[in-house]
């Protein structure tokens, strides 16, 4: 993979799974020296983003965060594209839970 400016080229970008589903943002990065070990998506990712991030993480409910190992990243273009589905990577669970609610309303497939 070519060199990418981590702050502008990865952080806060959209995660898209192998089926084209939007499944979170790159909320933080786990670094090992100069190498990226994993992408952090979700609450504990926000906690690393300053005081407001900590406050938001504290106010929010749901799973703490998901770590996506860097090896699962297929490509970085207009979004960060992943090799597996959101389900396999435990991403997008908020949407999964909300879907059960929305599906109870008639015409949810419209």
């Amino acid at each position: 993979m070519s060199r990418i400016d981590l702050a502008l080229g990865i952080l806060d970008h959209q995660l898209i799974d192998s089926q084209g589903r939007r499944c979170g943002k790159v909320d933080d990065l786990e670094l090992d020296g100069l190498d990226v070990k994993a992408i952090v998506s979700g609450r504990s990712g926000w906690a690393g983003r300053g005081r407001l991030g900590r406050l938001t993480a504290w106010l929010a409910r749901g799973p703490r965060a998901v770590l996506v190992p860097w090896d699962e990243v297929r490509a970085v273009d207009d979004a960060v594209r992943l090799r597996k589905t959101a389900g396999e990577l435990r991403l997008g669970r908020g949407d999964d839970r909300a879907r059960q609610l929305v599906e109870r309303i008639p015409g949810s497939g419209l």
Partner: protein
Amino acid sequence: MKTLFSIALGILAAIGGYVDIGDLVFNTTAGATFGYQLLWAIVLGVGGIIVYAEMCGRVAAVSNRAVFDVVRERLGFAVGLVTLVGAELVSLLTLAAEVGGIALALELLFGHSYQLFIAVAVLGLALVLWAMPFEWIERVFGYGGLCLLVLVPAVFKLHPDWGEVAKGFAPHLETGNVPLYLYYVVGLVGAGMTPYEVYFYSSGGVEEEWTPKDLTTNRLNAIVGYCLGGILSFALLICAGALFLPRGISPELLGSVALVVQSPLGPIGLILMLVGIAFAVSGAAIDTAFSGAYNIAQFFGWEWGKYRHNAGAPRFTIAWIVMLVLAFAIVITGVNPIQVTEFAVIFSVVALPATYLPILLVANDRAYMGQYRNQRLSNLLGIFYLGVIVLVALAAIPLMIITNMGTQ
């Protein structure tokens, strides 16, 4: 030929969709208070929305990013979050104002109580958002809004002093007090450049899966659509200036906005005007409800968009439902929708710089835009307007306080 046809249809929808409750209120009150002197402020606002709508449409077509993707990437989590909260509050306030506007227009058309029509409006909007495909929504309400073109013959029938009208296109102040004049400048520019228009426009580009092939459509939609939409604003201000100013009427009700066509064109004109208002304001209500949902989904990376269907973007769907419920709760308290509109426009002006700066930055970024990045003209205009909105944003709240929301 087919593309030309679809471009023309898109432009028609943009004209009908240009005017919202903020334009109706500020154009009419500005005309009633200062005659034609403030026409230039409409030109300023129309120019600004053209420049930034074109830019964010281009960013959407080339990089698949809507406004709050860009805000998050460029401003980071914390500053982005503050921008998000501001944008959501302003979108909600605007939605509440639009819902009140729909209810007022329906009340004037059909009688019955305003409260009843608030409920009808919210339920109707929810049904449309739930069941109608994206392209239809845009078109139906855009075309309905074209009834507002009745304002154009109304202008000619009122025989305004065309020399005075022409003078209005150059900034000047002959009579009246300066803070009030400046308050209306802020209001007219703010109503023209409301941020929800770019949230919705850019997200719509992603919804319609624009690619660089659609850049001509984007440019024509923005330039021609908004220019012609601006004509409706001119017409409204001129009618109000010709009709209300000499008689000393201050239009504090939506009914008086509609009166500007009844006097020259009679009852049919009035009905067309009210139908046009109902459609145009409903379209704007839909844009703002969706904008609120687009923004939060894009900020947190949720699945979003009408093209994913209701259950395919569940948190997005819940977000616009919540927007409608909150707007209902605001309007049903009986607050004056005209006042809510003024608040919405003035506060949205404050949110403008944080919305437009990231768009300008990204539109210049080679990594995002490649050969489609801003040319010199877009940058000159983009920077000019950024300066304008910073000035306007700084002046907005002090002017609102000094003039007691345009009443002194």
